[in-house]
């Protein structure tokens, strides 16, 4: 499928008032969102590199290209796209941008919006539109790239993206620090690590259920990834060893962390100020709810709860919502709850429209006047 095929599918859909569900590979981020569409427009076979000049550290690919394919292509030139959203590597870059999905590397390398240089999309009238460009710095025109990022395909179908790459680190090592002892000891250890002058690529706190699921034992852990040249990694390992007892673990553990979502029927992201997580994380981690995976990225100010990955029934979703509301009450009052994935029947009850303000509705009308692109996916 090329852009022209997307154009004709959208034009046909507009003419027949038949809404489209827009999908990447459909293997990922099946978030259970209530889309009112009978037809699916899938971009999974529109994949491949459009242009890649390694010396420029930029890459243009078709939207259906999988993240693992991007990893392979850039890896051949010792480069990488430091974007590790939760889910499988078979997910597409188009879906990653459309859903603004990010993972543990985001606290160092930024969110998808920060790595995106430009894109091509087809709006709800079938017009091919480009925003941004292919160079690393660009302020020409109004920013359509940011507008489409996280719009869940409701403003246009992304067909091509250009991304900023980085050199793969010469050294990339991961360590686990077991968070045992009392809640107080745990809190002081977490604070010690986070306020030290370390600059890890990723830092994630896992509760014991999550730690067990990724094969890191029965205790809550702090997972830390150091990257860069050899001296900077060694200096940081030394620094960490002075405040904790780090155990090296394989870098592949991050793949398992990303797949924690895999079987969950409910994923909830709580966003708050970093300090609030710093204050609350020891308590959250020590109050382990069996079967609920909790991962906290205190630097990014994000907590994710996965429910149902170990096969509980649908009530888990409700209990997780309860747990996140508890967090709301307990010290994280300046927080937002973002539902990433819910059982389909629960969506309408718990998640209001996130595009109900005048500006969002105006933009939706302008870009998808026939309301045919993923209607309902944002609660609209």
């Amino acid at each position, binding site marked *: 499928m090329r852009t022209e095929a997307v154009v004709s599918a959208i034009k046909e859909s507009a003419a027949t008032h038949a809404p489209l569900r827009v999908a990447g590979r459909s293997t990922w981020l099946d978030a259970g969102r209530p889309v009112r569409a009978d037809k699916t427009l899938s971009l999974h076979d529109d994949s491949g590199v459009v242009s890649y*000049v*390694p*010396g*420029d*550290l930029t890459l243009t690919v078709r939207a259906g290209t999988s993240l693992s394919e991007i990893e392979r292509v850039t890896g051949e030139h010792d*480069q990488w796209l430091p974007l590790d959203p939760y889910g499988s590597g078979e997910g597409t870059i188009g879906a990653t941008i459309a859903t*603004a999905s990010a993972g543990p590397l985001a606290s160092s390398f*930024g969110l998808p*919006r920060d790595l995106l240089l430009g894109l091509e999309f087809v*709006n709800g009238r079938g*017009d*091919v*539109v*480009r*925003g941004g*460009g292919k*160079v*690393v*710095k*660009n*302020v*020409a*025109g*109004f*920013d*359509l790239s*940011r*507008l489409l*990022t*996280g*719009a869940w395909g409701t*403003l246009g179908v992304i067909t091509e993206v250009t991304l900023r790459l*980085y*050199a*793969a680190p010469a050294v990339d090592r991961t360590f686990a620090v077991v968070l045992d002892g009392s809640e107080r000891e745990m809190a002081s250890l977490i604070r010690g690590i986070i306020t030290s*002058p370390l*600059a890890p690529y990723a830092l994630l706190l896992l509760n014991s259920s999550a730690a067990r699921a990724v094969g890191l034992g029965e205790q809550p852990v702090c997972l830390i990834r150091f990257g860069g*040249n050899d*001296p*900077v990694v060694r*200096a940081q390992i030394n620094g960490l060893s002075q405040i904790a007892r780090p155990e090296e673990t394989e870098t592949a553990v991050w793949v398992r962390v990303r797949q924690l979502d895999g079987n969950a029927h409910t994923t909830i*992201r709580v*966003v708050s*100020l*970093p300090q609030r997580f710093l204050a609350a994380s020891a308590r959250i981690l020590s109050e382990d709810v069996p079967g609920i995976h909790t991962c906290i990225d205190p630097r990014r*100010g*994000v907590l994710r709860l996965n429910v149902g990955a170990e096969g509980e029934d649908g009530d888990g979703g409700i209990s997780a919502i309860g747990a996140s509301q508890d967090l709301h009450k307990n010290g994280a009052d300046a*927080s*937002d709850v*973002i539902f990433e994935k819910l059982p389909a029947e629960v969506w309408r009850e718990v998640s209001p429209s*996130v*595009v109900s303000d*005048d*500006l*969002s509705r*105006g*933009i939706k009308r*302008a*870009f998808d006047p026939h309301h045919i692109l993923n209607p309902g996916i*944002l609660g609209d």
Partner: protein
Amino acid sequence: MTQPTPASTPAHPSLAQSPVAERLAEIVGARHVLNRPSELLVYNSDGLPGYRRQPKLAVFPGTREETIAVVRLLADEGLPFVPRGAGTGLSGGALADDIVVVGLHRLKKIISLDIENRRATVEPGVVNLRLNKFVAPHGLLYAPDPSSEAACTIGGNVAENAGGPHCLKYGVTLNHVLAMTVLLPSGDVVELGSKLGERDGYDLRGAFIGSEGCFGLALDITVKLTPRPQTVRTLLADFMSVDAAAHVTSAIIASGIVPAALEFMDGPTIRVVEDSIYAAGYPRDAEAILLIELDGLEAGVSADLEAVRRICLDGGARNVKVARDDAERMKLWQGRKKAFGAMGRLAPHLIVQDAVIPRTRLPEILDTIHRISEKYGVVVCNVFHAGDGNLHPNIAYSADDPAESERVHKAMTEIMQACIDAGGSITGEHGVGLDKMGYMESIFSESSLNAMCELRGVFDPERRSNPGKVVPIHACKEWNAVSGDRLRMAAGVSEPRPLEADPPRPSAQ
């Protein structure tokens, strides 16, 4: 509402002495409304000499409430306006052609500073450097550092999505703004983004940043602050050829090291700086210098410093000098940051470009620029953010000499075309404004420009906020005849007038 002015007479012939001026004065105080042509002269240009537009009236609200009242009054009257910060922009974006300037420099409160969570909320008129000085004692910095940092405002930075030398590593304004309270041209107040950093729904904050005043104005801005790096090292490498310095730039980027900054200055720029009060001790006989800054954890920086020094020497650098202390670093930076100002020594007018090219194309494009400058007999001073591929080929000239002006503009058009042909962008950080509007159609298709018009139409359905900028009006399919007429009546213009310094459209050949 006032009676519509008949279309046959100039719009608002008496705006300057009109009830509108009086009512604005009631809101902000008479001394904060300027309406005499002589007083308004100061506001007839921005940082880019060569464009002059005389505003009809300028109003300077001193508080958030006054700003809202001013914009609501203008909305009720259907009057177009131009939000303006410090007027340091380099694209003619803050010019008001016979309409109202809403100057925001009096809104300069730092509203809150949250040291632990590393964020600050400021009013739009807060000067960039002032914010940096304010947070420095806490070991923090606000990363975007335009060269005009000593004067430019955070509100203006948001409007332009401003960059600066250190954006190579740290990113531009877009990457550092979390949330804003925005005053729409209608007078409505909306919250965009989230102080928590992430939220569901459309990224309206992302859409607003870089909208060049066309979507309204920010009443407050919440920015992310960055911890000061443990170690900062600054190198000066000098070269006897531009080509060698360009190849070294590409080689550093390709090596994967991300310097905090990687700046390029060519021979003519070096000599102009060294002749000025900003002399930084650059070698006058060099044909190019690279100013390279590395920062981060000490161990990593030392290793990268060695690697960069090696790349420079292998690539033909004559000397690589490392600044010994902060004072020396500051001096090296002073020359770079004031280079545009120093060019004022050469001639009264300066044409500034801001194109971006893929970084591997740097040697070839610099060679092309050199050939174009010889062809037209003009002196191009290249001083730019090499690490980002963000060029600033500048030509000092006298706009009073028509023959020289013509040669200069032809040369610049050819340079821009070469950058576009290399797959680049027409502007990396200065914005489109008036100056680069003529090039928009050479990088965006009709439907892309139309989508931009539609986006703007949502924020500003009457196109009253900074009219006639960024996207050429004729590119807007949905240009609404009714609101268009209303705007024309109000502004007294039909299409943007031909500009004296307007770059000619790139020819098709």
